[in-house]
């Protein structure tokens, strides 16, 4: 693949020429609906729900507790790994709850969220802006971007500080102002209203990455934004403002790179591999806010549009604003919809929400509330006529209908041969399909199936390895034990043989040997238990082990606190997590009492189980183990008094006997 050279690219761009990508579609833009009015600050919602994870990567560590007062901009989580960015309180208020809440995901499943009840004052934490960013270390700047919680605001939400701290040299820094999806105008309005701030962000990123050229790309269906940006860049010779012909999905990272530079990002590679780094205009704005004004990312522009809202337009929504609040601000018109429907994101790649309580997250750029029949729904799938309109529309040169056949038939290895995983799910194929086949849905399903299958396969392989390691270990131990027995036996025999000519010394020696053998044997046995934990195969589950060990240690620490008064080690307390250890009982008496109770309860349970089994076995061969275990879940808390435990035990025995009798009666009846 001959890569177009830097000079060629620049001279072409300056002449206003671009490359193109094959395929693509031209859906109706419908941007006029929402781009006519200025961005509005909506009222404060009654409740803000901030999901802990809003981007690709891992969760941060939660820093706050329920009931705690937080100020606007205060970090709620801590970035513990490179691929994680913190989240911040979008306003001042009280932490109402930390727990599962439905989040912005097509599955409508719940994830950990922090719920905040605003106090209405909206007081900021003290901010530390860095207006003279040229004077501080680049790494410090990068960590400031990270701490401000900046993640890519165009699509997947890739943590920005990772892109901004690239060690490879950057030829092109591309600023993506394409916004190719129909209906969405968030970036359009941002460019019109905040061009100066965007450029400040571009400057910071330029400082960090020192690219050879900066290119700002805007699609030609946004003449106003182009005019504003052109004016802002007027005195800047280092920035190339490029107008790109409107075609969906020109705003896709790989597609835009192809359009602007004629280069292709290699498969499994990153744009940086061809010397390119790309940021969305919204991200640039957020970076400028983070560095120059010290503000973390706590709000973003969201387009609320569609014919089923009274006042479509753009809104500065705080991260965590529930969708239904924005809907009521924009004036939702339920009568316009036959079936209520809210799409988060654009009509081509967005997903439908199953719950209007879903919060706005860092990647939410649009809420589309279409009127009935506003969007044509491909409801009825017809047979594929192999017209290959999909292949002509595909921006990455896949053969969508082959993928469709294989995905539908669940022939996933074939689908992967046709490069299923190179699909960017842009939806162009399904858009043009005359048979209205939801092609992308088939691909997504196939992809998730393959991923889950792969995970299961890996898990099975790991289980197999562990099983075999265990088997080998047991075998080894058995042999060792036998060897020891053998040794001991020989020693004994030797002692017997020597008896006739024995002196008292020999006898002592024999006895010593016997004792040693015995000791060795015991040591061997105890090793066996110790080995349970230590001889696990050398897999990389150290983290899990470490976690468990940490938990055990936390517990031990708690126990030791109690042990200051007594030698008897109290039974462990109820904590399951080292962080949330509840206060340990104050006095030794308490601890001992508790321990006794617990032992009693445990004994009671063991007895109950045995009794129940025996009772059941008197009548039937089937052990009622399963009944028992379900009952076990309903056992009253252990911290009850021993009497209670015994009472419970009696009840349980009675219940088990009753159950067994009932079963017997039923069996006899059946006979």
């Amino acid at each position, binding site marked *: *693949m001959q890569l177009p050279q830097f000079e060629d690219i620049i001279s072409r761009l300056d002449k206003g020429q671009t490359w193109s*990508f094959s395929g693509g*579609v031209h*859906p*109706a833009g419908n941007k006029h609906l929402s781009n006519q009015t200025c961005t509005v600050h909506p009222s404060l919602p009654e409740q803000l729900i901030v999901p802990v994870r809003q981007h690709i990567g891992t969760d941060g560590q939660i820093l706050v507790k329920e009931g705690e007062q937080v100020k606007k901009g205060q970090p709620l989580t801590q970035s513990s790994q490179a691929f994680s960015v913190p989240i911040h309180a979008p306003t001042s208020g009280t932490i109402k709850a930390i727990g599962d809440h439905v989040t912005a995901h097509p599955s409508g499943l719940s994830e950990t969220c922090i719920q905040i009840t605003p106090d209405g004052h909206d007081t900021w934490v003290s901010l530390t802006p860095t207006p003279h960013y040229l004077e501080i270390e680049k790494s410090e700047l990068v960590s400031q971007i990270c701490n401000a919680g900046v993640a890519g605001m165009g699509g997947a939400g890739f943590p920005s500080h990772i892109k901004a701290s690239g060690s490879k040299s950057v030829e092109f820094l591309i600023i993506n102002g394409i916004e190719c999806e*129909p209906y969405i105008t968030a970036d359009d309005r941002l460019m019109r209203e905040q061009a100066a701030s965007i450029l400040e962000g571009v400057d910071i990123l330029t400082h960090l990455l020192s690219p050879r050229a900066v290119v700002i790309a805007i699609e030609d269906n946004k003449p106003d934004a182009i005019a504003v940006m052109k004016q802002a860049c007027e005195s800047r010779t280092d920035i190339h403002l490029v107008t790109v012909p409107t075609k969906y999905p020109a705003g896709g990272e*790989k597609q835009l790179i*192809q359009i602007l530079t004629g280069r*292709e*990002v*290699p*498969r499994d*590679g990153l744009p940086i591999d061809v010397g390119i780094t790309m940021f969305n205009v919204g991200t640039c704005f957020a970076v400028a806010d983070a560095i120059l004004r010290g503000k973390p990312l706590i709000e973003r522009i969201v387009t609320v549009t569609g014919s089923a809202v009274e006042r479509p337009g753009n809104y500065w929504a705080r991260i965590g604003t529930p969708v239904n609040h924005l809907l009521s601000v924009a004036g939702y018109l339920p009568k316009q919809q036959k079936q*209520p*429907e*809210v*799409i988060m*994101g654009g*009509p*081509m*790649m967005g*997903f*439908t*929400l*199953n719950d*209007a309580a879903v919060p706005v997250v860092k990647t939410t750029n649009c809420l*589309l509330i*279409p009127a009935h029949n506003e*969007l*044509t*729904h491909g409801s*009825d799938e*017809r*047979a*594929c*006529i*192999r*017209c*290959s309109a999909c*292949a*002509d529309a595909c*921006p*990455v*040169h*896949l*053969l969508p209908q*082959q993928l469709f056949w294989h995905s539908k038939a669940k022939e996933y290895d074939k689908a992967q041969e046709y490069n299923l995983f*190179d699909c960017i*799910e842009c*939806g162009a194929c*399904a*858009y*043009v399909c*005359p*048979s*209205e086949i*939801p092609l*992308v*849905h088939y691909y*997504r399903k196939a992809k998730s199936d393959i991923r889950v299958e792969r995970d299961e396969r890996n898990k099975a392989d790991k289980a197999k390895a562990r099983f075999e390691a265990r088997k080998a270990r047991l075998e080894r131990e058995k042999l060792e034990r036998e060897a020891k027995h053998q040794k001991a036996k020989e020693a004994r025999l030797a002692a017997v043989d020597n008896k006739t000519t024995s002196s008292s010394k020999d006898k002592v020696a024999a006895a010593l040997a016997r004792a040693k053998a015995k000791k060795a044997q015991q040591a061997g046995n105890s090793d066996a238990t110790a080995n349970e934990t230590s001889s696990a195969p050398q897999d990389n589950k150290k983290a899990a082990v470490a976690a468990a060990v940490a938990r055990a240690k936390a517990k031990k620490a708690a126990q030791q606190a109690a042990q200051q008064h007594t030698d008897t080690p109290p039974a462990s307390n109820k904590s399951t997590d080292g962080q949330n250890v509840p206060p340990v009982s104050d006095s030794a008496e308490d601890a001992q009492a508790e321990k006794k109770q617990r032992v009693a309860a445990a004994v009671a349970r063991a007895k109950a189980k045995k009794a129940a089994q025996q009772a059941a076995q008197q009548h039937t061969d089937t052990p009622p183990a399963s009944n028992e275990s379900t009952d076990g879940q309903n056992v009253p808390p252990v911290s009850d008094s021993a009497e209670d435990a015994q009472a419970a035990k009696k009840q349980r025995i009675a219940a088990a006997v009753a159950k067994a009798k009932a079963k017997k009666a039923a069996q006899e009846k059946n006979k």
Partner: protein
Amino acid sequence: MKLTLSSSPHMRADRDTSQVMRMVLYAMVPGVICQSYFFGWGVFIQIAIATIAALVVEASILAIRNKPVARNLSDYSAVLTACLLAVSLPPALPWWMTVIGVIFAIGIVKQLYGGLGYNLFNPAMVAYVVLLISFPAAMTQWIPPAPLHAVTLTFSDMLHLIFTGYTPSGLSLEQGLQAVDGVSSATPLDHLKTGLTQASTYNELLTSQVYEGGPFVSSGTGWAWVSVSYLIGGLFLLKTRIISWHIPVSLIVSIAFCATVLHLINQDIYGSALFHLLNGSVLFGAFFIATDPVSASTTAKGRIIFGAMIGFWIIIIRNFGGYPDAVAFAVIIMNMAVPLIDYYTQPRTYGHKGK
């Protein structure tokens, strides 16, 4: 209140399958009108017979297969197949032969393979070949085009001829087929083929009345105009992007190339490029038959190979085979090669190294 869930994209282009099929039907209109001008009412009667038969066959098989009947009929694919077959048949063909053809096309070639989208072969062309092999005489008896008519057949004459074999005034099919000179009812391609076996040369044969009145020298009377009117319909399809340019262009270029090469080798027995393009059903086939999406290649490169190979086979069979025309055979041969072509012409996926 429950929110509806659906998968992206939530927008669709307006064009659906039935619309595509209808557009192809509209594109056939100029060709059909022109064809009926030269060959009489029979063209319309055949279309009517074939369409009714196709709907009945399709509906009953769908019912047997427990598929939604109305919904599948409304995609117009059966109607299109019927029309494509009907215009390929001699206008005076007995009705039951047409019906057999349709049963074969819809029942066996299309539905037995799994219905729309699953057929390996072009249904209309397989049916045409089946009829050609089963009833070779009837299938080559074309009424002479209008300027050469000995007798002019009215609508009722034609109807009777198709359903009973005789006109109301008692003329038989053979009599109806008589041309002015009372001899020939052969198509231009037929005429050349038989003429060549009788040791005439290509240029001698071109002087026959069969080739009079066409738009160009060597184009058959009436036939060339029909071809040109199908070309107009085909250009309409290209313009509306119902079909892509790859197959028709590569097919036509390939025919022109192959014919010219042969013509240069021996002008006495091999027809010129224009002769081959305008006679027979090449233009019709290039735009309406070979472009059938189901049985054609699906990659851009593949379509070019597919079209070019059809053109190659047409010239080979016309010049060296036993049958005067070869579009149906060529298309079927290449239908078989489609999976192979598709496999070897996969485009390079974005970001992948070339194969």
